Every structure is written in structure tokens, then in C-alpha cells.
């Protein structure tokens, strides 16, 4: 049982780590890209894929608070 728990724990840490946004985002980006290719918009996918990666990275970060606060 401990071995099984350790196995799942390892993969959870490996894939999710400390950001669920990136874990879900990584898969979602390629799924969205695949849909675009399937719909015949491969040229758009070539541009949108890096944009979505950059956007997901930004989303995974904490929002900076305004300088004037406290």
C-alpha cells in the first residue's frame, strides 16, 4: 500500500508539482492546437501554440500587488 501511495505521489509531484495550472494547461494547449489542426487552421495553430504557452506560464504566477499598498 505504501509502495502504491509512493508511486502515485511520485507521479503527482512529477506532473503537477506546485502548479495545477501548468499541469492542466500543458495538456489543454496541445488539445486546443490539435483541434485547430483538425479544423484546417494549422497556420493559426503555429502562432497560437507559443502564445498559449506564454499565457499559461503567466497565469500560473502570483499577481503582483500595487506598489501603493501597505
Amino acid at each position: 500500500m505504501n509502495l502504491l501511495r509512493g508511486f502515485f505521489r511520485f507521479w503527482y509531484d512529477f506532473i503537477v508539482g506546485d502548479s495545477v495550472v501548468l499541469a492542466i494547461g500543458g495538456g489543454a494547449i496541445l488539445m486546443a492546437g490539435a483541434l485547430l489542426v483538425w479544423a484546417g487552421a494549422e497556420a493559426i495553430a503555429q502562432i497560437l501554440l507559443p502564445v498559449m504557452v506564454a499565457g499559461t506560464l503567466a497565469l500560473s504566477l502570483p499577481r503582483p500587488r500595487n506598489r501603493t499598498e501597505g
Partner: protein
Amino acid sequence: MTHTALLVATAFLASAVEMVEALTIVLAVGLIRGWRTALTGAASATVALTILVVAFGPALVHYVPLRGLQVVVGTLLLIFGLQWLRKAILRAAGLKASHDESAIFEREVGELSATGTVTTERGAVDWNGFVISFKGVFLEGLEVVFIVLTFGANAGRFGPSVVGAAAAVVLVAGTGVIVHRPLSRVPENAIKFTVGVALSTFGTFWGGEGIGIDWRLKDGMLLVLVAIYAAVAFGLVAWLKSGSTRRLPGSAQWRTS
């Protein structure tokens, strides 16, 4: 050419970072539990990791369809690379504590010392120390194995990633033997930042090919992706620094110490 150079460089840098962390643990075990124990544990872990590469590498290339492999590996590399990049960005912006090898070394030595002095016969191995050394090298090395396997499987040849990773192991181990202390002056966060950009690049590139994209710039797209992700990452560091989010003392730096 671009492809191969990037493969070698990424495998080298990723492996170097992980091996620096493993070296810290091996040094602590060696100092407290004896060098035979530490080196036996490290060598056993290296053998186990090599077996993993030899066992899974050819199987991935020969039995898994390339398209499916590219999608799975691309997704994993993308997630993995973005995680590295996220951590490096947070550390560069001062929002996450830096990885301090000297502090980790002191902590490991303290913990090993606290468990009591171990008196082993001359030349004998202390098994508790062996396990700590083995685990340290094995767990850090797993990430390197993952990179070597995924790079090799996608490129259809393991040479570049194995050469890059092996060169890093030799360099870090050799340096460890010479200096005999943790490599705390290695600019770990800058390396993690670079590796994060590179892994995200390969993840996008191979994942894209897997879903049917025929990159117009071919391998040249790798350089474009590197440039885009590096620029975005630097921009995000600046954006985070511009806010008043609480910073951790001494964490806004690229170096580990």
C-alpha cells in the same frame, strides 16, 4: 545542427543542475558516514539509472508510434519545462527562496550527525548512509533520465542527450572530487531558467509535430521559440519585481548563495 546542439546543451545543463544537488548529499554522507558508503550508494544509483535508460530507451523508439510519442512526450516536456521556468522566475523575482547548496549541506550533515556516530568496521558500508546517498543520486537522476529518454526517443537517437548528460555527470563529479565541498557558487537559478526555456521549447515543438503541425521554419522554429519564451520569462520577472509582493530575504538573485 540546431536541433542536435540544443539537445546536447539542454541535457548537459539539466543534468549539471541535478548532479550539483546530488553531490551535496553524497558529500554530506561521505563526511559523516565514510566515503566508501557515500560512493557505493552514488555508484549503485548511477548503475540503476543507466539500466533504466538502457531498458526503456530502445523500447520507446522501436515499439511506440512516433506521433503518439511526440504528443505524450511533448505534453510532459511542456509541463515539466514550464514548472522549471516558473520556479526560476519566482526565484529571480525574489518570491521564492533560492536553492542554497551550503545550507542544504549543513542541514544534511546536522541530520546525519544527530542520528549518532556510526562505527563500522574498516572498509564496511554503513547501510543507512548508503540508502541516503543512493536515494539522493537516484531521485535527482530520475529527472535526467526522463530528459535523456524523451529527447532520445523523439530525436530517434540517444547519442546527443546521453553525451550531454554524461559530460555533466563527469564534470560535476570531477569538480566535487577536487573541491570536496558543495558547489554553491554554481549559478543554479540561471541554469534552471535556461533549461526551463529549452524544455518548454522542445515540448512545444515536438508536441506540435505530434498533433500534425508541420513547422514552417523547420528546426529554425526551435530558435524562435527559445527567443519568445526567454523574452516572455524575462518580462514576467520584471512584471513580478514591479509589484510589491512580499519578497523573501536574500532570494532576489540568480545565484544560489
